């Protein structure tokens, strides 16, 4: 479904990615791991069209999407849940969600249905519907970001460290949601610091080191790989 062929990207003189290749099969969960600064977020932002690539190619459903605008890529069916707590703090939870459906804004009826679906997945958001998003807890804000991404009706969801700063209980819940979304047919590329959990949840894993792909393979194999265990699983 998604295929990165040797992409490179840089910020001015800072080289962030060098010849990164990666593939995500339709209906699967793949994870992308790596230390701080390895280039995980940069990879997602290249896919989303936020960061231009210098060389290589990005394919989605057989079409080349690198060089297209962010809006076009969202329209193709790729949504990103960015790293951190990226919400509209002074707007209501409901408005935060509605804005995720910007590309479908003319289809008001379906937008309403989609919101109802998001509330079904995250009943907590329904309770907080009219509250300013800035007053939500960290976990609720993470749910809101996922809900907002779903509002664009993606087929591929890019998630950038969704478990960041969540309590162990919430992390568990979050991964349940991720698996649930995947079961409804959503393909997911998951960036995580929590390598243990990410490799358990995903079918295939990639590990970036200093902007280059260091390891990749079926998640089960990565989990038993000596070097991976030592460097990323702490065992």
């Amino acid at each position, binding site marked *: 479904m998604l295929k990165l062929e040797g992409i490179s990207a840089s910020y001015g003189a800072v080289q962030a990615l060098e010849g990164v290749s990666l593939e995500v099969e339709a209906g699967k969960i793949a994870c992308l791991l790596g230390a701080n600064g390895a280039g995980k977020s940069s990879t997602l932002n290249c896919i989303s069209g936020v960061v231009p690539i210098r060389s290589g190619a990005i394919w989605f459903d057989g079409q080349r999407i690198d060089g297209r605008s*962010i809006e076009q890529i969202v329209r193709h069916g790729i949504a990103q849940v*960015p790293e951190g707590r*990226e*919400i*509209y*703090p002074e*707007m209501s939870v409901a408005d935060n969600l*509605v*804005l995720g459906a*910007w590309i479908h804004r003319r289809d008001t009826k379906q937008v309403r249905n989609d919101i109802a679906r998001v509330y079904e997945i995250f009943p907590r958001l329904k309770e907080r519907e009219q509250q300013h998003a800035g007053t939500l807890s960290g976990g609720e804000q993470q749910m809101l970001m996922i809900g907002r991404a779903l509002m664009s009706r993606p087929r591929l969801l890019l998630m950038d460290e969704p478990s960041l700063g969540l309590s162990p209980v919430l992390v568990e819940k979050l991964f349940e949601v991720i698996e649930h979304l995947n079961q409804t047919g959503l393909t997911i590329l998951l960036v995580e610091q929590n390598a243990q959990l990410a490799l358990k949840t995903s079918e295939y894993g990639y590990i970036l080191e200093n902007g280059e792909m260091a390891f990749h393979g079926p998640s089960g194999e990565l989990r038993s790989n000596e070097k991976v265990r030592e460097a990323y699983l702490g065992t």
Partner: protein
Amino acid sequence: MSTTLALVIISGIATGAIYSLIALSIVIVYKASDAVNFAAGEFTMVGAYIALFFIVSASLPYYLIFPIVAAATFILGGAFERLVVVPITNRTKGRENPLIPIVIATFGLSLMLTGFVRVFPYTEEVRSLPPLIRGAPIFVGGVPILLTDIAIVVVAVTAILGFWLFFSYTMLGKALQASSQNPRTAALSGIPVAKMRMIVWAIAGLMAGVSGMLVGPKLALTPNLGGIIMIAIAAAVIGGFSNLPGSILGGFIVGVVQNLIGYFFGSTTIAVAPFLIIMVVLLFRPQGLFGGPVHVKKV
């Protein structure tokens, strides 16, 4: 309460409604671009002169002048963003204090507009616009209220209400807010944030432009009318500079306080009022009268 005092307050409410519009113009730009548009007062001045031009040259009625002023200042605001603010932003990206060049550019625009407007007829002498509505004043409890004052308040409040409905209930309005609050994320949802920023500047131009049409009948019209911006900034400061309802209330407060100061201490002291208000608020409640604790912007 004496009749004169009541008149002073009512007139203050009418000018206050106008200040609210200019303050809103400044605050929405500040929220979208982090920069204070010091040319907002000149948008008011240009709006007033456009109205004057069509009244004197073509005797157009106000209901035709309103859309002309609105459209012209809308385009002026959007064009300035596209032609000046965007190129500057692109050049200063990643540098220290990237906003200072933009603020300086708005000063440049204010000087340019002040100079440019003198090219047009009817600007060499002090004039003022005819009242919005003619007719005998209405007496409320023995206090005569001018119809034009009522009209000013009605038009300004309707405009403010319209903006509020637009920003809170339409998808475009919400996207404008979102692009101001978190542009990177808004972009990730496919919202064209650059276009949104231009629209905010255009709407800000329109707000200030319309205020000029309203202020024209009340104040003497000269190319230096742009100095009115200090009063609007006082109103915005009362609102904590990023609180829209606070700035609206701030406009009314400044309008009334200014007139009261003039009433009690003589009309020459009126000019001091906005500075006094700015200093008092910044000293004792820098977050504005209505805001919570000081708003720390996350980087």
